[in-house]
């Protein structure tokens, strides 16, 4: 079943909270993973793997570089979800 953009944002907020300890309400579409949310390149791999599992989507390594903000990730997941 397809997820709505609200559900994807909420799911990413949970993941970022678990991995980086950022409060879920601070995980907003315009936030940069590295600059605003304390997600370094290694932790970004964790975020991606957790998102793949949660939203049943494949995010190839080459595409991860394009995911700068939470909004980028939400758009990508909405576009590619099964």
């Amino acid at each position: 079943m397809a997820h709505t953009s609200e559900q994807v944002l909420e799911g990413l907020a949970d993941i970022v909270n678990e991995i980086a300890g950022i409060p879920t309400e601070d995980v907003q579409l315009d936030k940069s993973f590295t600059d605003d949310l304390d997600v370094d390149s290694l932790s970004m791999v964790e975020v991606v793997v957790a998102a793949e599992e949660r939203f049943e989507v494949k995010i190839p390594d080459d595409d991860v570089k394009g995911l700068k903000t939470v909004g980028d990730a939400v758009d990508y997941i909405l576009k590619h979800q099964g």
Partner: protein
Amino acid sequence: MNATNRTVVVTGIGATTPLGGDSASTWEGLIAGRSGVRPLEQEWAAELPVRIAASAAVEPGEQLPRPLARKLDRSAQFALIAAREAWADAGFEGRAGDEGNQVDPDRVGAVVASGIGGVTTLLDQYDVLREKGARRVSPHTVPMLMPNSPSANVGLEVNARAGVHSPVSACASGAEAVGYAIEMIRTGRADVVVTGGTEAAIHPLPVAAFANMMAMSKNNDEPQRASRPYDTARDGFVLGEGAGIVVLESAEHARARGARIYCEALGQGLSADSHHIAQPEPTGRGIAAALQNLLDSTDLKPAEVAHLNAHATSTPQGDVAEIKALRKVLGDELDHVAISATKSMTGHLLGGAGGIETVATVLALHNRLAPPTINVDDLDPEVDADVVRDEARQLPQGTIAAVNNSFGFGGHNVVLAFRTV
């Protein structure tokens, strides 16, 4: 003193051990003669010949924020907790170079050792690989399992830029780290070095492996009585976990900032047995050489030595070889040395041992109190030395020195010396 022979002092201490989550509770436990050995309640332990260990008194995950803790192997968690305590105890706030911290990061070092490194991370991630597949292996695996990870994380914590090092020599690793740190300051490479040892290897694989070497006590029925250095009924060591860290500083730097000085860190003596990969050399030849090297390379006088924190792991061979070596080098001067085998209480922390025993040695000098060696019901007649038994013992007034011994599989011998100021 010239730039290549500077005086080194201890200005901060920190620990998290089987006896307590900080150095104060650890010291209290040591002086009270409390055992930190407990039964292993985990399911995996049921199948093993050894079902006891000196596990940490406080879970490290409770002392660190979760996002940080999950990126650190347990060994690095212990190291970071102890290092934070030691750094604050030395009177430092924030990282070197931060506003309010006058220390030059280019003059700060970190030398923290582990004997085994991130073994639980390695084994846990191997389980993930087999059970869930390659994609699920944590991207933090390598920085977590590398044996220099505790040192690197402590270095990051304090902003150490003079050098971050991690000597590895099995159970001598922690002491070798402290010796290396003393040299960094003595020779002018750094003014402040955070140093010590850490270990977290209570996992079925290391426990099974050590047990199969016949190195561990199998006294599962009486955990608190299992670690018994120098007792005739000793049957091997008890595995412990945790970390001990000290802040070393050039005397000049410490005095300039008005720091509290615990004692002087005099230097180290090193040697290797070249005898067997795991068995101690029975006459103590290598240990004697290390102690002699310490006496030759520092101004330590045997008459000053009032206390010795022995390596004494509670193995039949090793405990006696160490005493023989001490007698050989010190002769009658050994008679006024109060010997404590604190592993009787903490268990054996492998690469962490040199760290927490450095903390214990420094506190023994500072408080002029030698911790007891517990469980010596029947002193081995071959132990021809003054072992502090049952209760802590007051050390003499005036200038006194203490020696801390650590030896490791591979034949590594490290002897450290400290002296009151």
